[in-house]
């Protein structure tokens, strides 16, 4: 894998962004990645909290628009995250924390799809009633995995 990581890091795209003007290269990718975190983890937090009963009785269906923001942030972060990885592939590619982040991300998205399902199902009713415990458990897991994404993501810079 080391050869593949080195090849990624040496690609013209990787070197041009890493070596470009500070304000519009690496820094801009970093800024966009941070805004992406706000657009993904922010709505996830609100939707999960609502499933746990915070803010009841506003109807769950009213949160559906948040999924649009989530997916915009998610696609944006997939792009900026890939660029950040390419720029430091030889270092990040050997860091277990990076793979821990990917695992949290995978489970986070799976849980979010279940949250989505719960919201869609609830939209057929008045959307303000008590929720089943299984739905609340999904909301807790969703919060845990997305907190895991942020935690492992931040720790990549501090671990080897």
């Amino acid at each position, binding site marked *: 894998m080391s050869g593949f990581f080195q090849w990624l890091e040496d690609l013209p795209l990787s070197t041009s962004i890493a070596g470009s003007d500070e304000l519009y290269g690496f820094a801009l990718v970093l800024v966009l990645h941070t805004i992406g975190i706000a657009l993904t983890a922010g709505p996830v937090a609100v939707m999960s*909290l609502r499933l746990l009963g915070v803010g009841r009785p506003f109807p769950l269906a009213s949160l559906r628009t948040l999924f649009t923001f989530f997916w915009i942030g998610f696609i944006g972060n997939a792009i900026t995250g890939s660029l950040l990885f390419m720029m430091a592939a030889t270092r990040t590619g050997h860091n277990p924390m990076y793979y821990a982040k990917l695992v949290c991300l995978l489970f986070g998205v799976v849980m979010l799809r279940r949250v989505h399902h719960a919201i869609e199902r609830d939209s057929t009713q008045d959307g303000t009633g008590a929720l089943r415990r299984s739905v609340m458990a999904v909301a807790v897991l969703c919060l845990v995995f997305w907190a895991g994404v942020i935690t492992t993501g931040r720790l990549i810079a501090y671990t080897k």
Partner: protein
Amino acid sequence: MPAVTLAHAHLLLNHVPTLGLIFAVALFLLSLVRRNDELLRASLGALFLVAIMAFPTFMTGYAARVAIRSHPGFSQPLTDAHQGAAVMALIVIEITGAGAWAALWQQRRHGFPRKWTLISVVVLSLISLGLVTRAANLGGDISHPEIRFTQDLHEAEAAVPNDVKGLTTPAISQIVTNYRYVWPICEVVHFIGLALLMGVVLVINLRVLGVGTLKGMDYRDVHKLLPWGVAGFTFNAISGMVFFIAQPQTYTLNLSFDLKMLAFVLAGVTVLYQTMFDELWALTKYGGASRVAKFMAAAQITLWVGVLYFGRMIPYLTGGAEAGAL
């Protein structure tokens, strides 16, 4: 050198947590004595504003330190003492501001603030007054030997209160350096706080703007989410202060950080608007907000994105000036 610097800003801003706090506390106590709800709301808003303004007041203090450190008669122990006392005052003022905001929120939610919240704000605001008076007094000693209790500098330095010494920049910086996991933990807390805060900011403001299905929410119900946004903000404020105090040279005289703080203060004003003014509270399901309310909502989203942008650009958009070791 520009005619007006951050050192000047510190001289101007330090009146807010001192005179501003006296005014806000007096108004608050008067509102309780007279049992006047309007006065109470205004005084709680004033306490919240003082808490917001206390951040830039504290942070510009470092720029003031840079400006005077080469002056004859500059005393590092006296400056450290002022800084340590200011940290202590800042912490209590922020808790007071959070209490004042909680009282405002409860007034909206239940029609009146909880008794224990008001009692807490009374106690905290009086402690804040005492602490900020001491910080101001120690600040005066730095450049005004004529008002010191003694004209002898060594005697004045020896009289520095012990409790402020542990809160000076070098002491806190040493803790962060000695325990290497403190900084990464604060980074994690800062980003989790950011996500929580931005989630709530997005939902509340997109509702006011009437975006998509969010329009089906009653503002009174949406507002129940606000304490979670405030919790996220609290995470950010605490971790952010650790960063600042541990590495002031990174943030002091940094253009991006200054713009981040400006965006933060303005965002705080929009939060106050959404809590204090009545028109948003009349916003029922599928109701449209006024132009002013929509402007404030759009401004708040933009300002928080600005806080994110300038926060991330701190290492890159420096403005050229360097504070050096502090």
